[in-house]
């Protein structure tokens, strides 16, 4: 492994200079992929750095404690709120980014989403071989049915009894022990995120990974950043010592995610350098539901997510998935307060859980901005269409879980805390838009997309279809912020496929510009 030596002697005011050929900012599904794809250039003498805001997470230090790991892996401990404070966003930091905390659910981008994107050059013909490549590379497979727990089995059984579509997810794990705590990182590195697969390969080839590096802004071809030396990390709450760096690069690729990539661009070039910067954010707003069964469900044993249903994707724009969440995360999804909440949570081993993801439209007003301090803010309106989809999704989840054998369930959008089995035929009356109130229902998102949408015209997009920022010769984007609208499925594989494409473009640009055409050697 090659690690850069950070000099801890200079004072925080001193600007140090680092020189690279290619600098990648962010190490999640996008950045990790780009780093690996370009890393063979290191053998030809190209210097590549991968900057990451968070630390290197050590698998052996993962104790699977809900709050401690949420604080360690996620921005704002997993509780980043939109400006309207009616939705919580979960996105991660640290080498590997959000691929450290996903459940490994692997979906190919559906054709309907690609058509909606309508970006010349972006087609399934182009993306499919790339997605296949990462399916293989990440070991995506269908879990053996013997390892699938009751929580997931009941989701499948419910769908089948109702005659609904149901299918199994591919999951990208290797040597998985079914610990069930994927959203808190994996202590076995079984989940095949970029920290496990792509970044080690990139490092092997010579890419330098620089963790604890906050990119302030881009200045010409330089990146202005602060780096907290490793020795201060354990005491980071009391010792905020950091050093300023000017990182010189011939090519810069931003992969800091749908929240932070637009924020870096706005800090660098102003809030209005492009008419759609930060705009058209989509996020698959999601809601968790739970139902109590008479016998144990034990959803904590084994992989947390195995099945999904597309039954309502066309008609009502939501996707249903099986899921399992930890005590505190689960508790905050219960609408109400008092003894009923305590009582329901005390039935934890008997609870079946589902999650509904709304496939939201891309709207100009849903956006990232920056505040006076330059920090990212997320503006997102949960409009009537989304609320209506949620109400239908809650009814559908309730129907599914009753059909799977649940005694009673808790449904946001109902005036009563519990709905009982004998009321199962009254779901339309019991769960209504009247009782679905923003600020009561606990809505969350972990699929942040858009903000630097691809396209042809600089008036309507931030980058071209190769991720190159309009009007910038050496600046690229390669992460979920490229999506012109939502992916309609869990997005990591699509991000990797797009990052693979961006890396191809960067390589071609770099080699054509910096290779001596007569000798073939790098300049």
């Amino acid at each position, binding site marked *: 492994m090659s690690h850069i030596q950070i000099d801890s002697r200079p004072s925080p005011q001193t600007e140090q200079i680092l020189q690279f050929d290619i600098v990648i900012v962010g190490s999640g599904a996008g950045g990790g992929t780009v780093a690996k794809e370009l890393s063979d250039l290191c053998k030809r003498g190209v210097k590549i750095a991968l900057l990451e805001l968070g630390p290197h997470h050590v698998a052996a230090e993962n104790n*699977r*404690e*809900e*709050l401690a790991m949420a*604080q360690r892996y996620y921005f*704002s*401990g997993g*509780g980043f709120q939109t400006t*309207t*404070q*009616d939705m919580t966003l979960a996105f991660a930091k640290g080498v590997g980014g959000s691929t450290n905390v996903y459940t490994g659910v692997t979906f190919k981008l559906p054709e309907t989403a690609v058509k909606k994107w309508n970006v010349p050059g972006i087609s399934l013909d182009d993306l499919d071989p790339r997605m296949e490549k990462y399916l293989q590379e990440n070991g995506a497979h269908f879990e053996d049915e013997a390892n699938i727990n009751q929580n997931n089995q009941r989701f499948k059984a419910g769908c089948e009894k109702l005659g609904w579509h149901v299918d199994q997810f591919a999951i990208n794990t290797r040597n998985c*022990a*079914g*610990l*069930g*705590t994927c959203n808190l990182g994996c*202590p*076995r590195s079984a989940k095949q995120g970029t920290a496990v697969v792509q970044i080690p390969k990139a490092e092997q080839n010579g890419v330098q990974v620089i963790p604890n590096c906050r990119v302030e802004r881009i200045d010409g071809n330089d990146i202005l950043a602060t780096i907290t030396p490793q020795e201060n990390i354990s005491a980071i*709450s009391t010792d905020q010592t950091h050093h300023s760096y000017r990182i010189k690069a011939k090519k810069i690729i931003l992969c800091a995610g749908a929240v932070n990539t637009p924020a870096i661009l706005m800090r660098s070039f102003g809030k209005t350098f492009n008419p759609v910067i930060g705009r058209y954010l989509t996020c698959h707003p999601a809601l968790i539901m739970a139902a109590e069964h008479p016998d144990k469900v034990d959803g*904590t*044993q*084994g992989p947390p997510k195995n099945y999904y249903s597309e039954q309502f994707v066309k008609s009502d724009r939501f996707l249903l998935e099986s899921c399992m969440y*930890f*005590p*505190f995360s*689960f*508790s*905050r999804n219960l609408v*109400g*307060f*008092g*003894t009923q*909440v*305590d009582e329901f*949570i*005390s*039935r*934890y*081993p*008997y609870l079946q859980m589902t999650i509904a993801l709304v496939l939201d439209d891309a709207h100009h007003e849903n956006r990232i901005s920056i505040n006076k301090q330059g920090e990212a803010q997320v503006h997102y309106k949960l409009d009537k269409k989304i609320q209506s989809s949620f109400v239908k999704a809650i009814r559908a989840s309730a129907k599914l879980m009753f059909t799977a054998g649940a005694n009673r369930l808790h449904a946001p959008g109902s005036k009563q805390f519990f709905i009982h089995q004998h009321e199962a035929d009254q779901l339309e009356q019991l769960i209504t838009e009247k009782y679905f*109130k*923003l*600020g*009561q229902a*606990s809505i969350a998102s972990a699929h942040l997309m858009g903000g630097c949408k691809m396209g042809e015209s600089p008036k309507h997009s931030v980058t071209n279809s190769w991720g190159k920022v309009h009007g910038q010769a050496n600046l690229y984007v390669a992460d979920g912020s490229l999506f012109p609208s939502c992916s309609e499925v869990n997005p990591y594989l699509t991000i990797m496929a797009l990052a693979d494409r961006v890396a191809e473009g960067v390589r071609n640009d770099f080699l054509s510009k910096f290779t001596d055409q007569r000798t073939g050697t790098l300049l």
Partner: protein
Amino acid sequence: MKQNQPAPFLSGKMILRFEAIQNCLVPRSKAFTHQERSRSKKLINQVLQNQDETSKKKLSLFILLIDIASLVLHAKLFRQISQTKQTSLLAKFFDSPVSIFRKGFWGLNTLARLGVYGQKELHDEIGYHQRRNP
């Protein structure tokens, strides 16, 4: 330097105010042992330590607002009124037609739950068991 660090959110009178609300929102907290109570306070303070000052001010204001509402309606502080009245008062915020009150309530309710269900020592009680890492 230690003396310059701001006081934790839950300190002084704020502890009494918050715990009265927590007891109503998450009744399990009423049965806290001394240790569980300390852990709840510590967890909440740790999480709030990383929040910006504006969020903490909003939270303080919301807790104050609950006391003001209690004084207006019952001429007593929230912690001094009966449980039935406490429940009824909090329900007004929970189900308020004004969304900002609902959101404030959600934040407070979430913190109250964090202090209880964020305690790994209580997970056995609710039957949450993780599979052992072999």
